């Protein structure tokens, strides 16, 4: 069965029985207050942390039954922030995304070249190819790191707060890119902390206290009572063009 599925995840840390399914061609946003367990959930679903109970299924098969390179070809993961090699060329950074296909010693071939070119194209970073990563702006860098994740040509893309520290223009760029990637058939799971960005996703899952407390279409999930329960009584929801719009009532 196609998809990436969490079933009854308990532990580590905050998770207290999470069920969640990501389908190909859908952009699913994970929303929730700080410390709710979003990042832990994402890392468990990426196969980087092992749950104490429950399991993650990838295409119907337990994730831990996959070889690590095989998993890397299907699932790409982009952590929040993290170190980045200032002294590598953009092209070299994106090529590292081919590692699950090449292993430590494989020779790069035509398929790798094409995947790198495609990833740079998809993220609008082709013109940055020959630049050093350390010379880019925050927005440019984020697009290159996204291209690195895409270069493996994964079926599922897991992202931890990909819009943090970006200005509005670049936030919009990343959000539009996630939507486009989903339309191309990828399953995209992104932790976001801005409910207005989550409102642009196909589906939203709200994580609170280590559980998924609500999931569904943004307009069904992002309601005033739910958001006030998460973020306090100062949160209001308006509807603009049929879409929920969250703001703070001073």
């Amino acid at each position, binding site marked *: 069965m196609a998809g990436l599925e969490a079933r009854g995840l308990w532990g580590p840390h905050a998770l207290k029985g999470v069920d969640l399914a990501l389908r190909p061609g859908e952009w699913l946003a994970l929303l929730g207050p700080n410390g709710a367990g979003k990042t832990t959930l994402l890392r468990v679903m990426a196969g980087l942390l092992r749950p104490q109970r429950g399991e993650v299924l990838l295409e119907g098969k337990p994730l831990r039954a996959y070889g690590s390179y095989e998993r890397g070809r299907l699932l790409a993961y982009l952590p929040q922030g993290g*170190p980045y090699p200032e002294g590598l060329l953009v092209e070299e950074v994106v090529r*590292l995304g081919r*590692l699950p296909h090449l292993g430590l010693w494989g020779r790069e071939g035509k398929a790798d070249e094409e995947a790198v070119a495609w990833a740079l194209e998809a993220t609008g970073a082709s013109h940055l190819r020959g630049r050093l990563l350390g010379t880019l702006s925050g927005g440019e860098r984020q697009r290159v790191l996204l291209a690195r994740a895409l270069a493996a040509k994964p079926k599922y893309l897991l992202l931890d707060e990909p819009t943090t520290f970006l200005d509005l223009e670049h936030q919009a760029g990343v959000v539009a890119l996630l939507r486009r990637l989903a339309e191309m058939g990828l399953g995209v799971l992104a932790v976001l902390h801005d409910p207005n960005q989550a409102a642009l996703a196909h589906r939203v899952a709200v994580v609170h206290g280590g559980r998924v407390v609500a999931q569904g279409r943004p307009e069904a999930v992002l309601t005033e009572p739910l958001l006030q329960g998460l973020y306090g009584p100062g949160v209001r929801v308006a509807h603009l063009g049929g879409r929920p719009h969250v703001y703070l009532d001073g």
Partner: protein
Amino acid sequence: MTLALPLALRRSLVFAWLLLLLLLALVLGVALGAVALSPGEVVRALLGWEENPIVTQLRLPRVLGGMLVGAALGVAGAAFQGLFRNPLADPYLMGSASGAAFAVTLFAALLGGLSPAFAQHAVFQHLPLSATFFGFLGALLATLLTLVLAGGVARTHELVLAGVVVGSVLTGATTYLMMQDADRVRAVFAYTLGNLAFLGWPSVRALALIFLLALPPLLLLGRALNALQLGEETARSLGLPLEALKLTLLLSASLLTAGAVAQAGIIGFVGLVAPHALRRLLGEDYRLLLPASALGGAVLLALADLLARTLTRPAELPVGVVTTLLGGPFFLYLMWRRRGWA
């Protein structure tokens, strides 16, 4: 970092320069000394056209051994910096060189009861290869101790501080062991300060063997080191077998450090300066940076040894004094540039 020349061209030029400098350092290193030889004599002796025992028995093993020591330190420094994603990591600052020195001394003390084996300060040239293995354990333990004290690799200042503490304590312990026999004070200083004067053909053979063991794994892991620069989480998500990888890097770099220390004592800053200077010229691609750091370390130490042999003629300085005097300010410059960054 300026990129006036296309990177590919610049990278080839850097390697060409390194090879040229290495050749130059070889000829100069063999030519200079108490008896000065002309370049013609040197070349003829090196090519075997002319018998010259000064060249073949004395100077050539010293120069080649010194280059191997420098290469070991350079490549170990690059590997440590890549592994710990910390530009200030090197065998000297991480305490691993001091750990190796302490273990080798302890080995010699146990072996010789601190007396007959230290009869001449040339003793070090005859330490068996098993001393290097002892030094390897010492280097490994000292590195792990530094990591524990620093609470991991992420905090640059804590790492340097912990390395200095571990290094100083172990150097003190080494000196104490050796001072048990006061006649050997000169040898103690020569050893803890790093010296190439004792290198003979046995040392060159020992170093060559260490290289055969430890260099291939490092050179083959260039792509993995590049991926590690994206952070451990990302590296693991790409499918890299992280634990095995880190262990291989740590063991190989420690073995190279121990090999260098067992033959030449503690020589500071070569492992820091060579990869650093080359990173600015080549970028951060470890597939290039590792071999370049080996060449660069060899060139640096060979040139430093030339200074050590000529600055205070007819007396000689331990080469470690030269590298520390030149490397210390460079280190300060790096700290100053990175302030507010760690």
